């Protein structure tokens, strides 16, 4: 299968690989997927308590090029966003931006799930109820 230029770019130069301190109350961690399925994404956000905006985002992904690119793109988009705006990132936005073929749509779904899981982890840590899409 031929990959789009944007997928190749994110795969070759992934943005924001790394690990944030998951014990910090400012950090939310989302771990989604399963090794058996060939896709595991871990996405982390750090929230600036004064502005309520996402100040940093990191990822690590076990998966194909499209899965890596989807999570890399997600971290790029998350930085500077409010929690509310981040919650509204839709997997189809990722599909469109990366020109993912139909067989790779699940990679974008996983990235969206990872964003939501990270946000909810942050909320629960800070005594807030987990939320569904706003």
């Amino acid at each position, binding site marked *: 299968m031929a990959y789009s230029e944007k997928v190749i770019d994110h795969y070759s130069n992934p943005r924001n690989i790394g690990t944030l301190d998951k014990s910090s109350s400012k950090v939310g961690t989302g771990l989604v997927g399963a090794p058996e399925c060939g896709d595991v994404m871990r996405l982390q956000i750090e929230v600036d308590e004064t502005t309520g905006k996402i100040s940093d985002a990191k990822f690590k992904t076990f998966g194909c090029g499209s899965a890596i690119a989807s999570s890399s793109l997600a971290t790029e988009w998350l930085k500077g966003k409010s929690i509310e705006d981040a919650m509204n990132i839709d997997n189809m936005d990722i599909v469109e931006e990366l020109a993912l073929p*139909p067989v790779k749509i699940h990679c974008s779904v996983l990235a969206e799930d990872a964003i939501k899981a990270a946000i909810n982890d942050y909320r629960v840590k800070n005594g807030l109820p987990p939320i569904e899409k706003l």
Partner: protein
Amino acid sequence: MLKLPIYLDNNATTPIDPRVLEAMMPYFTTHFGNAASRSHSFGWSAEEAVDYAREQIAALIGANPKEIIFTSGATEADNLAIKGVFEMYAQKGKHIITLNTEHKAVLDTCKHVEKLGAEVTYLSVKEDGLVDLAELEAAMRPDTILVSIMYGNNEIGVVQPIKEISAIAHKHGALFMTDGTQAVGKIPVDVNVDGIDLMSFSAHKMYGPKGVGALYVRRKGPRVKVTAQMDGGGHERGMRSGTLNVPGIVGFGKACEVARLDMEEDTKRIIALRNKLENELLTVEEAYLNGSKEHRLPHVANISFKYVEGEGLMMGVKDIAVSSGSACTSASLEPSYVLKNLGLDDELAHSSLRFGLSRFTTEEEVDYAINHVKEAVEKLREMSPLWEMFKEGIDLKSIEWAEH
């Protein structure tokens, strides 16, 4: 000069040998006759070329030229063998035994004859990919008509104990068929020594052209018959109608001749290169060889790099052409059934690469591939959450994964 990308997917197909191409050329141009035309020299020269190729092919596998039935490839030969035996011997029985690591051309054909009333036993293999002979023996029934077990596996290169298997089949009055696609031309195969009654094989896996293959059908001790699956002019002793692919057959013959004459030397060289590739790559932490190390085709190595995903890895090794046991598509999140049937964890099956060398592979290419793969594995592990967890000593099995 090293030319990129480097082709290391020779289990999928091989490049055509220049000697083979040269032999074929006249049969596209001046000698274009139909081998079935009996009334003029165009037909005679085509028929002569086909007869000669049949001899070259038979010589490679220790057969009589009359026992070679030309087909479009190994898939058709597998179909002809299994469907043809099932139809021909239906009165004798309806039980067939095969392995769950066979090629789809065998497995799906078995599924097909099941719908027509056959009973098929799909034996599991041992961890190293080899058949358990005691299990095979136990599975034999009075109504078993056919045992179909491949010679060498296309994904892991494991070579089955063919002599022992055929002896068991014959002891119980069944025919023995083998898919020899990956083995013929690579290792010595002799239908008499090995006790083979039917064998499918193909030209393009041994430096010949695509679109031509053969089914070996034993004529003596026992005389094996298969019901034709293609009706028409009664070519190939009535077993496979259709105008013969003369240039393809000429190339197939030449490829067999070259394989017979060069096998010993080619194998020595290829094994040395394969072992170098394999030994170097197995120095990578958490890298594992899949399938039996000893009982294996000389040109194949299937290696899992734990905690990196195969498809992502293939993208990282874009300078080499290899294949992966991982299939990360929404249609199929299932990794290779062959690797799974060895009992591999899904995650290891997802992390595999198959390397297939050829007589044209050079040491320079192997050296390049080693470094290229090592670098890609390292890079992907840097971004793998599983690798990080492994390094922190977290047992991945203790985590509740959200399967999707």
